Each structure stands twice: as structure tokens, then as C-alpha cells.
């Protein structure tokens, strides 16, 4: 755990120094909202459509972060440095998933208000706690799967292609559950609590992939 914290702190410090990932993700998300405005030809959207636009945008923005997650390790010897240390290798999985979770949270701190401002019809206030819960569960799933996908893709020749190609199908069920859970929250006569069925699916998805990631991650580090 201490090791994971060490690696996480290093990752956050690197991001703070370079500002390579999070600002790009946020800018991408806002641009995508503008594209949706013109693409849909709508001034405001609500309900399931709004939930779909929001989730798809966040997912695509997340792909940018996923692609970059292990690039510094690969190009600047971070993998070797970590593997030379007498530490548990799972710490790298935990640290990277945590870093991606932080990046996604920061992305949403910018993207969700921007979405409410630019596109969303109904007020965001009342359903906000429910939406935060849904997004937190979604981020957890994206963070775990994203870390796995990124660790696989970073060693391929065409890593910018392999990342999304692998990540998008794997994340479709998570996207589906997130969108369905957020839909009623963003409707014009909004409920304030997300549907339990989809929260359960998201949680199940997170747990299964967390266990799976734990089981296979070591194989991605070995040489």
C-alpha cells in the first residue's frame, strides 16, 4: 500500500509538472459538447439523450488519459525502475488505477458543470448527489479496465489505436449501465435517486474486473 502511494504521488507530481493529460481530457470533453450541439441541432437536451451524450463524451475523453497512462513508464524506464525494486507488483496496478481515477474525477469537475451550462435543459442541482454516485462507480470501472488496457496497449507498435480498439468494447456494458442509471436523473421531471438495477450492474462490473485485473496484471509486467 505504501508503495502504491509512492507511485501515485509520483504520477500526480508528473502530471502537475507536465499538465499533459487532464487539461487535454477536459478540453476534449468541452469541444465534444459543442460538436454534439451542432450534430444534434438542439439547444438543450434532457433525459436519456442527455445521459447518453454525457457518458459517451466522458468515455471518449477517458480514452485520451488511458492512452497516456503508461507512456512515461515505457519511454523513460519507469517499468524497469519499478521492477528492480523489492516491492509487490500489484502496487503498480493500484497506483495507476488510482491515478486514472483522480484524472477522471478532475475531468468531471470541469466537464459536468460545462455540460449543465452548455447543453442540459433541466437544472442539475437536485439530482447532483445521485449523479456523483453514478459517475464515481463508472470512474472506478473505467479506471480498472483503462489501466489493464493501457498496460497491454503500451507495449504494442500502434498503441494509440490498440488502446481505444480494446477499451471501447470492454467498456460498453459500463457505458450502458452508466447511461441508463443517469437517464432518469437528467430528465425534466427528474428523480433524485438513480435506478438500483443499474447501480448494481455497475458495481458488479467494477468488482469482477478489479479481481480479474488483480489476477492477470503480473503477467503484463514480466519479461
Amino acid at each position, binding site marked *: 500500500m505504501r*508503495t502504491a502511494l509512492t507511485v501515485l504521488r509520483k504520477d500526480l507530481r508528473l502530471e502537475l509538472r507536465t499538465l499533459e493529460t487532464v487539461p487535454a481530457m477536459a478540453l476534449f470533453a468541452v469541444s465534444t459538447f459543442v460538436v454534439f450541439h451542432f450534430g444534434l441541432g438542439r439547444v438543450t437536451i434532457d433525459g436519456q439523450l442527455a445521459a447518453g451524450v454525457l457518458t459517451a463524451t466522458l468515455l471518449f475523453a477517458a480514452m485520451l488519459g488511458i492512452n497516456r497512462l503508461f507512456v512515461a513508464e515505457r519511454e523513460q524506464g*519507469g517499468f*524497469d*525502475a*519499478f*521492477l528492480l*525494486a*523489492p516491492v509487490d507488483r500489484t502496487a503498480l496496478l493500484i497506483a495507476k488505477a488510482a491515478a486514472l481515477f483522480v484524472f477522471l474525477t478532475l475531468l468531471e469537475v470541469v466537464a459536468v458543470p460545462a455540460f449543465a451550462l452548455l447543453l442540459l435543459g433541466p437544472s442539475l442541482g437536485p439530482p447532483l448527489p445521485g449523479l456523483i454516485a453514478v459517475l464515481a462507480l463508472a470512474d472506478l470501472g473505467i479506471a480498472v479496465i483503462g489501466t489493464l488496457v493501457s498496460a497491454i496497449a503500451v507495449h504494442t507498435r500502434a498503441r494509440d489505436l490498440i488502446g481505444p480498439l480494446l477499451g471501447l468494447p470492454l467498456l460498453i456494458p459500463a457505458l450502458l449501465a452508466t447511461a441508463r442509471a443517469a437517464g432518469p436523473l437528467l430528465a425534466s421531471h427528474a428523480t433524485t435517486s438513480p435506478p438500483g438495477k443499474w447501480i448494481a450492474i455497475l458495481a458488479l462490473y467494477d468488482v469482477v474486473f478489479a479481481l480479474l485485473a488483480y489476477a492477470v496484471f503480473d503477467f503484463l509486467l514480466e*519479461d
Partner: protein
Amino acid sequence: MARTPGTRPVADTPAVELRGLTRHFGERTALREVSVRVPAGATLAVLGRNGAGKSTLLRILATLLRPHGGEVSVLGDPLPRRAFAVRGKVGLLAHEPLLYRDLSGRENLLYHARLHAVGRERVDSLLSAVGMERRAQEPVRSLSQGMVQRLAVCRAVLHEPALLLLDEPRANLDPGASELVEPLIGRASRCTRVLTSHDPQSALAEADLVLGLRDGRPQFVGAPGELAGATLKELYA
């Protein structure tokens, strides 16, 4: 600089012992039937031209690559079975400095210190030992290659390894800097060392033992004095 070496192997177990070590990359064989025995405290020079398998050998000893055949024992522990016991007792200085370009030298070393559970005083004393204390706050990308190499030396010896694996350790170092790192990675470190060099003469001068590789096959194993000029020439031909 006074150093108390960490874990030292018992005198009669060799620091490194290879028996028929073989490693493939797909269908290509990078190392074939390499056998050598390095006593604790001795220096092994690995000679051979580019692609002869020198770096592969060092990476296997560092537990970064797994051996495919033969027996490998490092500091008394067989690889790859007890790789976890070997990690943290070897220091690797390879072509890549293993430092993040956007962090400062000090931040990089502190990161490694935490991974190896080493105190921060050790980082500061090493930085001053290689004359880098003044520029330690600058990001690594703004430093010259020689300075980066000095930081990489600090990184490699941070946790006081008993076995040093040095791949061209003096690349990019001017004579002054070379002298600064001498107590850390030279014979004065009193560590067991496995080193390669682009300059066979200087490597031979430092070595107690020589392993000559050609296309992954051992061509010569013995004391530097026994290495005939013709054999040396053949290694690099």
C-alpha cells in the same frame, strides 16, 4: 566515502554463478550455454561487439528477463524462482538512466529511495558525492548527458547493492566526473561487479575475470592475463 556494504554473501558462495544459461527471443538465441562463476567482491568484464548478448546477460542478472535454460544463481538465490529475494540487492546501470525527464534529479532519487525503503539522507549524501547538489532541483530533461549519467549512478547504488551490473558505466562521463563516481561504482566500492564497456582495454584493466561473447556464445572465460590478443580481436571482428 565510507560505506558499509549491506547484505554480503558468505565468502565461499559465488556472487554470480551461471551454468549453461540460455535465453531466446522468439526463434533467435541471444545467449547460448553461458557458464561462469564470479566470486564475491570480484569484477567480471563482459566483452563482445554490439548484439553479442551483453545487455541481455545483465538484464537477466537484474531479474528483468527470465532465463530460458540452464541455472542462474545471484547472491546465493536461484533465478527466476527467487527473483523477489534478489531484487533490491542488485544495482543496474544500463543505457537508460531510468529517471523521469520532467522530475528533478532529487525528486527522482527520492522516488527510488521510497521504493527501496532508503532514507532521504542517503539521497543527499550521494548527490553531494557526485557533485550534483547544486543542480539537483532542475528537471532531468534540462541536464547534460554527463549529469544525467551521474544521477543514474546515484540511482543504481542508492540501496547499497551487493552486486553492481554496469552497462557502459562511463559513457558520457568526462574524466573528472568519472573520478567522482569511482568510489561508488569502481573497484573502491568493494561490490561484486559485472561490467561491459565499449573500450575493451579499460574494461580489462578493471577486471578479475573476463567473459567474451560472440553471437551469444561464450568464446572465452578466464583471467584477463590469459586473453590473447588474437582472441580479443576475434570477439570484436
